[in-house]
């Protein structure tokens, strides 16, 4: 009986122990569940989401930059990055096989792919970038586990390096970094979209998984005023002039004077637009658009502005007489001609034809500082032209008002022939374009049309102001025609057309403020003279053999104008060349 009772007590004890253990285990499980489901819920939910849910930023197709006739200068095409899920390449053998298969298509290094993936801490990483459609299709056909394609976009330039500084380039994130790509980012960039979806082990989207989407918006197409033919011609002639005269660089700008449309804007030195070198800070200087960022002393081409002001105020006419003694004394300084000549009695016409510094200084004296600088500002100097291009500077015009301490009367005398005053090439060409447009100063136009996904916007030419009267403008054009008659035909001859222009040979100032014996040679021309359709500035920096604008810059103008006028189907004025 006693043993029966003790056995019963032993059973009861063991049963109690088992029940206790089970209860504690159950309680532990419940607590663990509470920890997983309640306390750490957000952490584990996020972890699960990271594994099963993918979030992709989708870029809208970047709008193309087209020339005035619709030829793409910069356009985008889809490219594909090969993404590998790091976990799926943990096994070395499988990873090596998969990497070899991918490398066979991409011509990459399979060992590097494996080491990159196995050393990564992210969920997935790219092993190949920017594949074209055919290569991406081959990768997809391989059907590799943990490998997927991520669609992206790359910029293509069908005309190669044409207008490199003007167009600029985009970064890896498809955002414009320089040039028009940056300036027109809000138009061509479009808007990014997002896709969130559940994925399977291969990284592919689950058919019945949840998905949310915000569609990307494509960028607008922008039709520029640039003409690819004229631009190419300008770049070719710029390269030729630089090579022939061993110059350090240069700029050519061609403008339609009646509308202010910029037909070509070329600068040298330049860079490889298809593969810009960002490795070295010193290369950054190559990316800037020198036509708007670099200021220079324009030299004798500026005499056109001085003469226009004097004629417009009725102080002189082309036949007004003046006596050139070879020197003009201003505040104790002697102004002399470029060839130190003394020409005796001369007309205002001859001041331009012979490019007399003394004559320009005399004209400025007739005007006086207030009226002289008033016209300088009216011609657009001293402030940006409003082209809309990023980095455009306004040049530097020192006057008695803005530099009362430093300005002297001799400054106006030197300014009258384009020294001691800083302008940009775009300012100079737009000022002369005003003379070719009946005295109306136009806002420079680079964008002709913006074609959006839903609408189309045309840019209209804008008259900024009337700078001089139409009669004065016509007089100056005629004077420019006489100037050109003095240039030998082997240097300037646009067959069939009467053209006008003015040369410039300007000394380059050193950082210390003195002139360092190097020059900028330039020519600014108008064609045809009767009904101007083209105004062009050719500026060549530091030619080594000869400094004269007549020899260095005028031939380039001649060849470009000859080709461009025929290209624009402008009939020649010389009847012998025309057959009916």
């Amino acid at each position, binding site marked *: 009986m006693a043993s029966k009772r003790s056995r019963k007590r032993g059973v009861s004890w063991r049963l109690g122990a088992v029940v206790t253990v089970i209860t504690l285990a159950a309680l532990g499980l419940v607590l663990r569940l509470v920890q997983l489901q309640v306390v750490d819920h957000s952490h584990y939910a996020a972890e699960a989401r990271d594994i099963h849910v993918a979030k992709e930023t989708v870029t809208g197709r970047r709008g193309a930059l087209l020339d005035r006739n619709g030829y793409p200068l910069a356009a985008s095409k889809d490219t594909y990055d090969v993404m590998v899920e790091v976990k799926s390449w943990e096994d070395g053998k499988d990873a090596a096989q998969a990497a070899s298969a991918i490398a066979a298509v991409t011509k990459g290094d399979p060992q590097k792919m494996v080491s990159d993936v196995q050393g990564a801490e992210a969920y997935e990483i790219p092993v190949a970038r920017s594949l*074209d459609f055919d290569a991406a299709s081959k990768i997809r056909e391989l059907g590799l586990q943990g490998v997927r394609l991520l669609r992206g976009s790359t910029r293509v330039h069908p005309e190669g390096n044409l207008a490199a500084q003007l167009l600029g380039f985009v970064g890896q994130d498809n955002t414009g970094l320089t040039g028009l790509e940056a300036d027109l980012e809000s138009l061509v960039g479009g808007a990014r979209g997002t896709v969130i979806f559940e994925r399977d082990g291969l990284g592919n989207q689950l058919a019945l998984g949840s998905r949310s989407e915000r569609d990307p918006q494509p960028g607008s197409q922008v039709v520029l005023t640039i003409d690819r033919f004229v631009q190419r011609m300008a770049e070719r002639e710029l390269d030729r002039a630089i090579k022939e005269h061993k110059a350090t660089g240069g700029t050519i700008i061609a403008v339609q004077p009646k509308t202010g449309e910029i037909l070509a804007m070329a600068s040298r030195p330049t860079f490889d637009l298809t593969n810009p070198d960002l490795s070295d800070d010193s290369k950054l200087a190559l990316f800037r658009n020198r036509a708007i960022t670099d200021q220079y002393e324009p030299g004798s081409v500026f005499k056109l502005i001085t003469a226009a002001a004097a004629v417009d105020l009725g102080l002189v006419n082309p036949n007004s007489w003046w006596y050139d003694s070879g020197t003009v004394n201003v505040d104790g300084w002697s102004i002399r001609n470029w060839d130190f000549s003394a020409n005796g009695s001369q007309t205002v016409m001859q001041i331009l034809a012979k490019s007399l510094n003394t004559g320009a200084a005399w004209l400025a004296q007739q005007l006086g500082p207030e009226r002289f600088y008033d016209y300088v500002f009216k011609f657009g100097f001293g402030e940006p032209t409003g082209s809309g291009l990023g980095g455009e500077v306004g040049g530097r015009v020192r006057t008695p008002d803005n530099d009362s301490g430093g300005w002297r009367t001799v400054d106006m005398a030197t300014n009258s022939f384009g020294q001691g005053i800083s302008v940009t090439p775009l300012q100079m060409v737009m000022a002369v374009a005003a003379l070719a447009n009946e005295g109306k100063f136009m806002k420079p136009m680079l964008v002709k049309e913006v074609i959006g996904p839903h609408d189309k916007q045309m840019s209209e030419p804008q008259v900024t102001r009337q700078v001089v009267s139409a009669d004065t403008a016509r007089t100056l054009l005629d004077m420019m025609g006489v100037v050109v008659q003095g240039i030998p035909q082997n240097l300037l001859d646009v067959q069939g057309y009467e053209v006008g222009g003015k040369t410039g040979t300007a000394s380059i100032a050193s950082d210390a403020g003195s002139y360092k014996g190097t020059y900028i040679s330039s020519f600014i021309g108008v064609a045809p003279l009767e009904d101007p359709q083209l105004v062009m500035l050719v500026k060549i920096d530091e030619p080594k053999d000869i400094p004269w604008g007549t020899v260095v810059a005028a031939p380039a103008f001649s060849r470009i104008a000859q080709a461009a006028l025929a290209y624009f189907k402008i009939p020649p004025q010389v009847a012998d060349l025309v*057959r009916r």
Partner: protein
Amino acid sequence: MPTLLIIAALVIGAAALIPLVQSAIATSTNGNVHRLEQQRDDWQAKTQELELEVATMAGLDRIEKKARAELKMAEPKETRYITVEAAAPEPRMLPSRYLPPKTDEKQAGPSIWEQLLDWLPLP
């Protein structure tokens, strides 16, 4: 009675299958949609590549190289202009691929239903 029970069981079984069939159809349709979207994206990408290939082929540098090397063309030494007594051609239009899709003129005006609604004295 047993027959009725069998029929009822079959009906209940069939009813139970409906969600399964629906789910299968939905999965299949969804798969097809994704496949077609993929195909559409692929064709769009291929079209873009071809457009850019055409643009590259029309590049001035390439045309000049071909003209000089293959057609033995050279720049003229003298230019003669011939005036043609005919109307000038229309300016070259932008390639249609760069233009926005044309809006359907029929959709431009209000529909019959919208016109009917306009008649109603609604606020």
